[in-house]
């Protein structure tokens, strides 16, 4: 055995990060033990009792970070230490100086990239509008990732963009795909001729993934942020995005995704649609299809339907073929639902949805509304169904874990699974729960190892309860997380897995219907 270590001066990390990196190190070839910790006298005594104290560490101070690895031989130990240092750097976990030049102003950034035509703004909400306005004044399109932008400022920015023909994606725009580049939380999708304007971040991810997985491709995916289609903002960014797709020669089919826009916004969308012959599919979740038809768009009942409609138009495939496929799959879903329902006890009757994606929780509520007559939520369709305490489920419940109440002081649930994992086990301990429903959104910006994070918890939940666990994965085979392996691991853990939220929700609906939910 060889024990090797290094001392890092002036680098600070939190305890969990250090423990997690140490854990990763112990998984490396030939490594028996590893530790990362500050050099206090007491820690050195623990290292000593663990056979990990090397001579160099004896002089280390309390502000030094000690990295030590015990491995089969010296080479493996040194290699492991190099890997640990890489992990610390790439994860950018702590407080470190950066060698790379990072421009601190828009002007500085434009000196490096003079041909750039778009700026992503991700600063505190109160400063975001000012930074966005600066970019617009330079004639650049803007994606505002920040939320909590004051209303009047957001309005000013959107108005300026609208008046000058510049895209203002956001505020609170988490996803976009521009000229094939995924921005924010986004997936690696096929390029193609379907353009999307979406006032829903996860909605854009779900639709672009279903399109890509069904053989279609995306020209542009323009996010606008959810507030845009509300009365106050008059759909200013949505309309500019729509016009951009109409003018874009690469875009042959347009898909619109949103919660039902305000009637005034809907009317304005209709005015613009009069100017184009391009086919437009609209998934305005929960909206009256007749109203959608009136503005000249093809109504889609859910995100799956919208995506497949767009692909069928793009590829010249008859939608009937897709409908037949959906009809056949629907029959299979009903059969599967009745098999699964038989395994439940009489006491098990409630649905518990724990969502990473805001649009997906909304879509699920829309689709289950008729069966369940309403679901309690922290983001409900009907305000009377708002959960009093979002941490506690009541009867049928669907929780959006991306809401501010869950994300203050911790990363978005698409990155950090800890909170949901605890909640899964809480639900499993409730004997009245029939279905635990999970979405797993992968792609850039999201958790790199969702299978490792989620499958042990699903297995544990299955040990505790015989509740049915349904998971829907939003992603493509080209995403960095290896979607096929993820799905296979989720299935092995005992989940019923889908790649479209609407299908997964329909299964849940059929199960609940058959047990009288």
């Amino acid at each position, binding site marked *: 055995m060889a024990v090797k270590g290094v001392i890092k001066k002036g680098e600070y990390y939190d305890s969990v990060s250090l423990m997690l990196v140490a854990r990763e190190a112990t998984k490396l070839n030939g490594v028996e033990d590893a530790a990362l910790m500050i050099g206090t006298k007491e820690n050195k005594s623990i290292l000593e009792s663990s056979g990990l104290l090397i001579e160099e560490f004896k002089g280390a101070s309390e502000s030094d970070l000690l990295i030590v690895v015990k491995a089969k031989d010296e080479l493996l130990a040194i290699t492991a230490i190099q890997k640990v240092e890489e992990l610390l750097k790439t994860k950018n976990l702590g407080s470190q100086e950066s060698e790379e030049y*990072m421009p601190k102003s828009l002007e500085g950034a434009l000196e490096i990239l003079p041909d750039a035509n778009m700026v992503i703004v991700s600063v505190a909400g109160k400063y975001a509008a000012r930074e966005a306005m600066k970019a617009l004044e330079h004639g650049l399109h803007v994606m505002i990732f920040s939320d909590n932008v004051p209303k009047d400022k957001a309005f000013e920015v959107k108005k300026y963009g609208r008046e000058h023909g510049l895209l203002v994606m956001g505020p609170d725009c988490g996803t976009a795909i521009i000229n094939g580049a995924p921005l924010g939380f986004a997936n690696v999708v096929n390029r193609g001729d379907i353009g999307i304007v979406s006032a829903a971040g996860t909605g854009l991810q779900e639709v672009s993934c279903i399109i890509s997985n069904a053989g279609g491709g995306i020209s542009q995916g323009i996010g606008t942020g959810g507030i845009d289609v509300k009365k106050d903002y008059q759909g200013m960014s949505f309309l500019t995005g729509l016009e951009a797709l109409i003018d874009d020669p690469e875009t042959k089919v347009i898909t619109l995704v949103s919660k039902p826009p305000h009637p005034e916004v809907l009317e304005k969308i209709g005015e613009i649609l009069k100017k184009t012959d391009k086919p437009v599919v609209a998934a305005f979740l929960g909206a009256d299809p007749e109203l959608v038809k009136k503005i000249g768009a093809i109504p889609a009942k859910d995100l799956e339907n919208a995506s497949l409609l767009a692909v069928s138009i793009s590829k010249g495939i008859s939608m009937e073929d897709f409908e037949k496929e959906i009809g056949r799959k629907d029959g299979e879903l009903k059969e599967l639902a009745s098999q699964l329902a038989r395994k439940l006890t009489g006491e098990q009757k409630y649905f518990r949805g724990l969502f990473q994606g805001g649009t997906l929780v909304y879509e699920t509520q829309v689709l289950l509304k008729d069966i369940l007559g309403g679901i309690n939520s922290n983001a409900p369709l009907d305000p009377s169904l708002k959960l009093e305490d979002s941490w506690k489920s009541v009867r049928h419940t669907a929780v959006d874990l991306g809401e501010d109440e869950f994300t203050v002081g911790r990363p978005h649930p698409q990155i950090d699974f800890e909170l949901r994992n*605890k909640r899964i086990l809480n639900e499993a301990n409730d004997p009245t729960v029939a279905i635990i429903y999970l979405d797993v959104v992968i792609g850039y910006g999201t958790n790199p190892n969702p299978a490792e994070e989620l499958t042990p918890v699903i297995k544990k939940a299955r040990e505790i309860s015989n509740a049915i666990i349904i998971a829907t994965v939003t992603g493509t085979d080209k995403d960095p997380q290896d979607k096929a392996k993820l799905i296979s691991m989720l299935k092995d853990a005992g989940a019923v897995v889908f790649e479209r939220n609407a299908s997964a929700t329909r299964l849940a609906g059929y199960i609940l219907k058959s047990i009288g939910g």
Partner: protein
Amino acid sequence: MMQKIALIAESFGDCINLNSDWKQIRIHSTFRNVINLLVSSRIISIVAPAVGRGPNNIVVDIDDFRQFKYINWHDKILYLDDYGIDFSGAEKYDSEIFISSSNRGEFMCNLQISEKVVVEEAPQFSSAFLLDDGREKFFKTLFERNLKEKIKITFKALMNGYFDAVNELKGVGFGLTPQGDDIINGIVIALYIFEQLSGVKTVNIREKFYLQSSNGNVLSNTFIYYSSVGRFYEYFKDYLLAILSDGKNVESVTRRILNFGETSGADILTGFIISLKKFLEGGLLWQ
């Protein structure tokens, strides 16, 4: 130096003297939500609103503090790089806590609720195994097990009246504020609350804890110091007020602390809950 733009301070702690001359100032450490400044031998932290107010915190709504590389104090203005901080509209945070009366029965019940949340929801690598030994299983490698045992043995000794065990507990743990220091911080807070509830004076023993546990870690020293003089960070003040009142929000305020600084919140709560229960059962453990 030209002030390019004013960063707006939303609040500042009541232990920060904005009129003093901060000549000896440097950046201690920087994280996404916090930039810790070393001013003389104490820490002043500039924090994002998500971290919250505190006796030595300046709250400024900035997304990522890691963008700043320099600190300067010039003409009574604090600069991050060349961005001056404007305190004109900032509210002064009152970090003291006043307890008028309490219902001991209800208080114990609230403490139990809080303990349950910690046991069920604390991060795996935290010291919550001291509350529930079922959590010891999370410590897997030899090194992790040794660390856990060290914390367990020294904490037990301390709770059995052996004060010098504080020398063995301080500094034990991985990160910026080691678990041992956070547990000690929890004990010191418990001492203050015990004094408020029982009238038994704990000021000397609190000071002794601070002096004995002071080491080269200025962050830990700062946290323990403020607890020893009865000054609390907002998240902990809210917690104390909740468990000492009707207990309505005990679960949510406990969870808020658990979200603080990876394991730190859970470690402080573990030290606080166990030691306060001990004091209430049998009085002060050390003379």
